[in-house]
């Protein structure tokens, strides 16, 4: 069960960090007048279209101690990101970033601009408006972002294989374990992992649709 536990741990940590990063990032993308923000948006969405192995390959190069960035991390901070759990987390953050940012961004863009403007004419700074007005009104988008990021991290294969190297107990997550078991013709074990992931993914998606349905009904009433 170690690969499953590792998968959940990776997904949980990745989702939590992504939420903290994505809220200010989406807020900036939605409301900044900075002209080059389209470039930033394109970069964030890149993992949607890029083959995971390409991302994994470049991260492997970047984190490798034989290259400048990896060397710097290794020598000055004592961090080695290749074939390690922290490396997996960083790769997952990049890989799942659009799955968190895009729903939140869509949520912000769907709000009437007058809400933000009203809050500013009432003398409130941006941070107060964000926490007290904007975020509570995009609860459904936040939930969608959380679930998509979690599920996407849970299912990643190419990136974790490239950067993590499939080390049992360390970087061997469930999706890799299934592949390994199939490779060694151990279909029973593969099926066990697969079934758990299948049931889990279905349950959380169903849960999200139920909660979103409840939100939209609550919004219609309030």
């Amino acid at each position, binding site marked *: 069960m170690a690969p499953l536990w590792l998968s959940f741990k990776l997904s949980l940590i990745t989702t939590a960090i992504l939420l903290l990063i994505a809220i200010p990032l989406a807020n900036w993308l939605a409301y900044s007048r900075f002209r080059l923000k389209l470039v930033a948006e394109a970069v964030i969405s890149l993992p949607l279209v890029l083959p995971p192995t390409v991302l994994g390959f470049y991260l492997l190069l970047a984190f490798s101690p034989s290259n400048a960035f990896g060397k710097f991390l290794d020598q000055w901070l004592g961090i080695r990101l290749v074939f390690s759990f922290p490396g997996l987390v960083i790769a997952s953050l990049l890989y799942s970033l659009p799955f968190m940012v895009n729903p939140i961004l869509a949520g912000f863009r769907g709000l*009437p601009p007058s809400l933000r*403007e*009203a*809050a*500013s*004419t*009432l*003398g409130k700074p941006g941070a107060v408006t964000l926490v007290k007005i904007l975020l509570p009104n995009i609860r459904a988008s936040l939930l969608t972002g959380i679930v998509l990021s979690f599920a996407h991290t849970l299912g990643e294969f190419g990136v974790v294989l490239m950067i993590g190297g499939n080390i049992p107990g360390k970087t061997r997550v469930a999706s890799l374990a299934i592949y390994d078991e199939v490779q060694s013709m151990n279909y029973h074990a593969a099926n066990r992992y697969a079934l758990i992931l299948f049931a889990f993914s279905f349950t959380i998606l169903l849960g999200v649709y139920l909660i979103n349905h409840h939100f939209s009904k609550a919004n*219609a009433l*309030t």
Partner: protein
Amino acid sequence: MTTNFLTCRATKMLHTANGNQPLDVSFELQKGRLLTIYGPSGAGKTTLLRILAGLTDLDAGHIETNGETWRDTQRKIHVPARKRSVGMVFQDFALFPNLTVKENLEFALQKGEDRRLVTELMELMELSSLQDIRPGRLSGGQQQRVALGRAIARRPGLLLLDEPLSALDDDMRNKLQEHILQAHRQYQLTTILVSHSLPEIFRLSDEVICLEEGRITKKGAPATIFLRGSAGEQLTLPGEIIEIIPSDPSADRTLEAPFASTVEGALTNPSSDPDALQKTFIVSVLCANLIVPVIATAEEIKGLNKGQKVMITSGSFHPQIIPLK
């Protein structure tokens, strides 16, 4: 000596559906006055309010209230919206859907401010019984009162109202006009209102600015602006023409194009249809929620159309209809 509370000189290029059009205005307002901005859509009324509130920036100009400069393009002064003492009621009310009525009002309080103001405003706006309800469940009139209460809870020097009553029916309108007047007086506000409705303007405003194609075409008291050369009348009623029909019951039809051209023809060439000139018409004018029928001759209805804004004046003779510009 009276000093100006607000001085505004602003130019801005407006990008409207009909192409670019410059907004170029300059006006002053004294403390405690209620000014209405009147004009056709696309004239720049809402933009002007937004410029005052700091939500839209101007290209060049100077805005000063109560001796404090809010915007000066030459001196590069720009006080952001949240630091301007402004209360704004948006066209869509912009109530926060996640907060109750009371919480919406409380959101406007500044740190450490006395919450009794919220209670007082809820009583003034007749919202006390709705305080724990979220805005989505309120009617248009109730939402409007919350928006007005919230804007005043900010304790603004300048209250800006962007067509706040346009979506309401007549009864609600009258009641809310009363609320606006009451709040304006009680809290000694200086208020700027955008409005299309003449009855509303006459009831509420001390002064009117007519804004057309980005420029101020007229400025003054409502009566001076809307009554064109009509000295001596005893009663005046602003309204809108809803119907023009011949007073002859046998001609049971509204004044339609062919008929109108007959009248026009008779007026320019009396021999073509001598009867047309003799005819009289009943012009129904909607004043607030009252329909006033006015008898008019063919000569008098010349140039009057359905939907036109007019003023009925009644002096020593029969009532007359004066088109409003």
